[in-house]
């Protein structure tokens, strides 16, 4: 089976991250029901991480905001999966689109044309099962671990965010946008409620693109 090894390798990574996430979710006070619901229905590692890390110091509303913002790119993933699943019935497409994740899309985009369809479904379903079960196991383990900070587990979120960020820094505009978003976050954090600085970051990123587009016309 093509891509089998790639899928297995990525699945292992997803499983370890899911486990770490589950432990941190437990330390944030989430039980396995909450994590199960999030993992199966929202099914987005980045957004779930943003949600939990914001929940720790903020409110459910700001956690929702962070998670939703991180998930904006899902629209693009949905469009990509729509193309890959174009030959299938609408109900199957409506179901299939749910499995569009960073990793599934990355593997599907990188696959040969004739393999894209099968890669999407095989990786999509595999990663989904791995994610749901590892986050659940992590949550159950988290209740047993006690203090995740002693084990340095609170570094798991920054680590994943940085691992997600680095490959996206492909153009100068994007790098500047990331820097200005970080600067805006620093500047705003002491002055607004927890979870809200991300809005300043969004403004900074959008402004960066707008300014750079304008100046390329002058």
């Amino acid at each position, binding site marked *: 089976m093509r891509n089998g090894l790639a899928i297995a390798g990525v699945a292992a990574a997803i499983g*370890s*991250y899911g486990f770490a996430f589950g432990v941190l979710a437990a330390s944030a006070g989430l039980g396995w029901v*909450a994590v199960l*619901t999030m993992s199966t*229905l*929202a*099914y987005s590692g*980045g957004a779930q991480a*943003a949600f939990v*890390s*914001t*929940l720790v110091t*903020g409110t*459910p509303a700001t956690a*929702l905001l962070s*998670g*939703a*913002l*991180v998930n*904006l*790119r*899902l629209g*693009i993933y*949905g*469009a*990509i999966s729509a*193309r890959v699943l174009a030959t299938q019935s609408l109900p199957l*497409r*409506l179901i299939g*689109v749910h499995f569009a994740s960073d990793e599934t899309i990355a593997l599907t985009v990188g696959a040969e044309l004739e393999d894209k369809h099968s890669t999407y479904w095989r990786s999509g379903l595999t990663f989904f099962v791995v994610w749901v079960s590892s986050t659940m196991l992590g949550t159950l383990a988290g209740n047993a671990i006690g203090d995740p900070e002693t084990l*340095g587990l*609170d*570094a*798991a979120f*920054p*680590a*994943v*965010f*940085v*691992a997600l*960020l*680095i490959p*996206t820094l492909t153009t100068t*505009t*994007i790098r500047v946008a990331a820097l*200005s*978003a*970080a600067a805006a*976050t*620093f500047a705003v*954090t*002491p002055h*607004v409620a*927890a979870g809200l*600085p991300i809005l*300043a*970051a*969004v403004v900074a*990123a*959008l402004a960066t693109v707008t300014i750079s587009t304008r100046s390329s016309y002058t």
Partner: protein
Amino acid sequence: MTTAVAIALLALISYLLRASGLLINEDNPIVDRYSGALTAGILASLIVSSTFSNATELTLDARAVGLIVAAIAAMRRLPLVVTLILAVAATATARLLT
């Protein structure tokens, strides 16, 4: 808003965003131009918040060590598993030593 409601809304929003892709023409240049920067900006903001803050307080602690290690690992394209383990170990060690 309770946590349960927030989770339900996150699930709904996530699915709607994905399903909306069935309608989007993915080659929209405006979307392209902004989405990369937006994603990067959001991730950068989350890095700052999850490393250098506790609610409304800016902090500097062992998490920063983990971040530096993670950044180096990520720049070297190490597998995510390895990046995670290194970052977590670095933070735990830094905490132990301070």
